[in-house]
């Protein structure tokens, strides 16, 4: 086996035992359907022996195929009744090798496709709907809004020690109010706005109006960072004239 030694390949460079077997077969230019099982078993075991210690976790699979090879070798050696009728004991291995060889070929073909695709750049981010000079903002979720709202409500609750029946508020009116504020300023500070509300009822109504406006996609709520103030913007400033 001079040949095998002059051509040292580390076990780690193989994807698995089938990979190693294919390598040995190809090196000897053997037909995969007619493997000289004794020679190949010897070559294979020699590769395993190059390792001084076997790492069972990683190399158990190599040992598994080794036992399969030895098993096939023993089957080939045993005298059989009618050779034509019986299946070639090597068949199990041949089938697996052919399947594996196919997978390797597919891998190589897919690798080419991958290389090509990785060089194609796609659009991945939407153009910002906001002003260019603004820092990166993240759109807030309903939960962020609700959380801020409850915080504000708590503050209001403390103030609300006496209840005097006040004005009735409607969501429609509030929506109009928010929009008319937004017409004049670039954005509305959510916290400021709520602090300006006079009663619990008014706060509630304005919060619902804000949710309505977001749902109708007329305004957008953004936040620079978690816990920072929430800013309310018009999604499309030119549209507002029509609505108000």
């Amino acid at each position: 086996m001079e040949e095998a030694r002059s051509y040292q390949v580390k076990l780690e460079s193989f994807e698995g035992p089938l990979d190693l077997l294919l390598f040995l077969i190809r090196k000897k230019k053997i037909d995969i359907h007619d493997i000289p099982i004794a020679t190949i078993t010897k070559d294979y075991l020699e590769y395993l022996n190059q390792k001084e210690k076997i790492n069972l976790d990683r190399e158990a699979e190599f040992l598994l195929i080794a036992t399969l090879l030895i098993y096939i070798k023993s089957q080939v050696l045993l005298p059989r009744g009618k050779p034509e009728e019986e299946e070639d004991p090597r068949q199990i291995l041949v089938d697996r090798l052919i399947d594996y060889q196919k997978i390797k070929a597919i891998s190589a073909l897919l690798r080419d496709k991958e290389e090509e695709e990785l060089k194609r750049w796609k659009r991945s981010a939407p153009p910002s709907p906001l002003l260019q000079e603004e820092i990166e903002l993240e759109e807030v979720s309903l939960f962020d809004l609700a959380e801020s709202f409850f915080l504000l409500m708590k503050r209001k609750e403390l103030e609300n020690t006496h209840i005097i029946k006040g004005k009735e508020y409607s969501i429609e009116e509030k929506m109009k109010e928010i929009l008319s504020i937004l017409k004049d300023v670039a954005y509305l500070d959510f916290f400021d706005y709520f602090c300006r509300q006079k009663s619990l009822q008014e706060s509630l109504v304005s919060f619902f109006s804000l949710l309505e406006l977001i749902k109708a996609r007329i305004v957008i709520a953004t936040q620079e960072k978690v816990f920072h103030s929430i800013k309310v913007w018009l999604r499309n400033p030119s549209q507002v004239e029509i609505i108000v």
Partner: protein
Amino acid sequence: MKKHLRELIESLIFVSLEPLSLEEIKSVLQEFEKEEIEQAIKDLLESYVSNERGIQITLSGGGYFFSTKPEFDMWIRRFLKTAKKSRLSRAALETLSAIAYNQPITLAETSTLRGVDSTHTMKVLLQKKLVKIMGRKKVPGRPLIYRTSDKFLTYFGLNSLQDLPSQEEISKFLEEKEFGE
């Protein structure tokens, strides 16, 4: 508007962040006949092939999207200041190949095909969303069964599983390899 259908579709693909499927295009353009839309898409794709442009419209993973031409990769990366995108590992690619051609498939079947335990690799592929769990096989132990995802198709620039290398291509590749050595 009929005259501008081609440009209209082009603009839809432009604003879409995900690959835009034919069904989505049709559902938006209710005013138009299905045949008209299909013809317009065909014309649009042709116009991109014949015109000398830096971007193309590609159909992959079941949708249309804009992408740059591969030959400009180097300069685009220089501009975006990004390194080469990382490729899949050999193990991951091998596992994907085994799954793609034998799906739906269990983890044990995948491992047998490769002759290597594929638990870890499968986990990585799931994280990358290149494979997905489709349910359980009705055999003892009820093992999970896996399939390749739409992202798998887009990743390799395939429109459907039919676009995977054919048996002939695989045989040809194997033959060439044998002669080469």
